[in-house]
């Protein structure tokens, strides 16, 4: 049984003061991961004296459009991402990832900040956020710093977040309508399941119908989601009407194995990641053609 004192902060500053002055503080927002861990007695009681509720901090809610970027408060829920016109217009891949998370009840409660900080290898927002070149903003009493996602995520379930820090927002660059994006996911059943594999692709398609600035980020394929640079090089500059899928499917499988080594899941994941790539690319190309 986990025993703790319950604290609540309504302001970011209040949170930072608690984190500075108190030891063994665990944060709770949407609770969709934490309450499961608590129920299963997965939390070491020696490490938690205080549970600090941050779910009511208004400053960390809402999606804001700035001149050259979009700011997503850490407490924005998955449902809010799915419904946001701004997100669907600028970075559809993120809304497409969010809608596959859990169920309506979980999407209504689970937050962007929680999904990022939990840093699951299968987190459905991480691959889109990496592909979108998002940054996270971290605050502590000592100041503010911004990190790219690859800098922030240091391994499975592990981040660079200091114990006196809090993730306050995620920042996305703004993308022109020359950019296309897509998210695809394989899971055992449609609802309430974690990804066996997922994939986020963001790319510009230029006037000559060629991929430019393409980013390909599979999730659940490597210890943490990361851009696959070999396959990106392969596709950079490729004409959307002249794609050799067989070759690409083979190559992305090889790139995955070059990172993870042969694992028990490789005989399944190697062909699966190839077909996920094909599905994602054909999805983007279909959209490009529909736009004329």
């Amino acid at each position, binding site marked *: 049984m986990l025993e703790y004192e319950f604290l609540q902060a309504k302001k970011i500053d209040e949170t930072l003061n608690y984190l500075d002055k108190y030891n063994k503080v665990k944060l709770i927002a949407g609770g969709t991961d934490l*309450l499961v861990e608590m129920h299963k007695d997965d939390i070491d009681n020696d490490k938690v004296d205080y549970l600090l509720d941050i779910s009511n901090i208004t400053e960390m809610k809402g999606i804001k459009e700035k001149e050259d970027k979009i700011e997503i408060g850490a407490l924005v829920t998955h449902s809010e991402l799915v419904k946001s016109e701004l997100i669907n217009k600028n970075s559809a891949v993120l809304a497409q990832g969010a809608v596959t998370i859990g169920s309506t009840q*979980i999407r209504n409660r689970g937050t962007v900040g929680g999904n990022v900080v939990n840093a699951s290898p299968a987190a459905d927002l991480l691959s889109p956020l990496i592909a979108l070149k998002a940054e996270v903003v971290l605050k502590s009493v000592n100041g503010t710093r911004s990190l790219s996602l690859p800098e922030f995520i240091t391994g499975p379930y592990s981040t660079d977040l200091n114990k006196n820090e809090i993730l306050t927002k995620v920042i996305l660059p703004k993308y022109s309508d020359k950019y296309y994006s897509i998210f695809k996911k394989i899971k055992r059943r449609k609802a309430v399941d974690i990804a066996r594999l997922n994939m986020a692709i963001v790319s510009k398609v230029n006037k000559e119908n060629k991929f430019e600035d393409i980013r390909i980020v599979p999730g659940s394929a490597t210890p943490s989601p990361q851009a696959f640079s070999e396959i990106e090089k392969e596709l950079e500059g490729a004409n959307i009407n002249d794609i050799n899928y067989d070759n690409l499917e083979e190559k992305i499988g090889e790139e995955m194995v070059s990172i993870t080594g042969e694992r028990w899941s490789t005989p399944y994941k190697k062909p699966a990641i190839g077909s996920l790539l094909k599905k994602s690319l054909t999805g983007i190309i279909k959209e490009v053609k529909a736009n004329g």
Partner: protein
Amino acid sequence: MVKNITVNLTVNEKNYELEVAPDERLLDTLREQLRLTGVKEGCSVGECGACTVLLDGKAVHSCMILTAQVDGSEVMTVEGLEKDGELDPLQQSFIDHQAVQCGFCTPGMLMSAKSLLNENPDPDREDIKTAIEGNLCRCTGYEQIIEAVEAVTPNKEEKGAD
């Protein structure tokens, strides 16, 4: 030493001031303190949806929220659907379409469907399926439940035809 927390909640349109333990879930408060036992505990980990209630109008798992987190919020349970002795049309529709067998999932199903209808009074079949994707039913096979929800939408005749 565990300190309790004082919380103000509006539940089914009534106001309550409650003392809650730091680890008390909304599910526990509703069932144990307010005796609203229509809220069911199934899996306790956000997979079955039996504990679904509306929190400020939206469907949530009451097993995954600490009551202390939702001070000042408005909660609706299945007990709040009935008005002046009259069942909500959605409840009546569940009965009419035999969408209830053992009944354990029913309160959660009703609240998920209610949340959908609050947001979108005219959902299509896919919207209904998405709304109840987090609610497990081991008896009905879902078809009757989907039909029961469809029947209370404005274009029910049209939809019933296909």
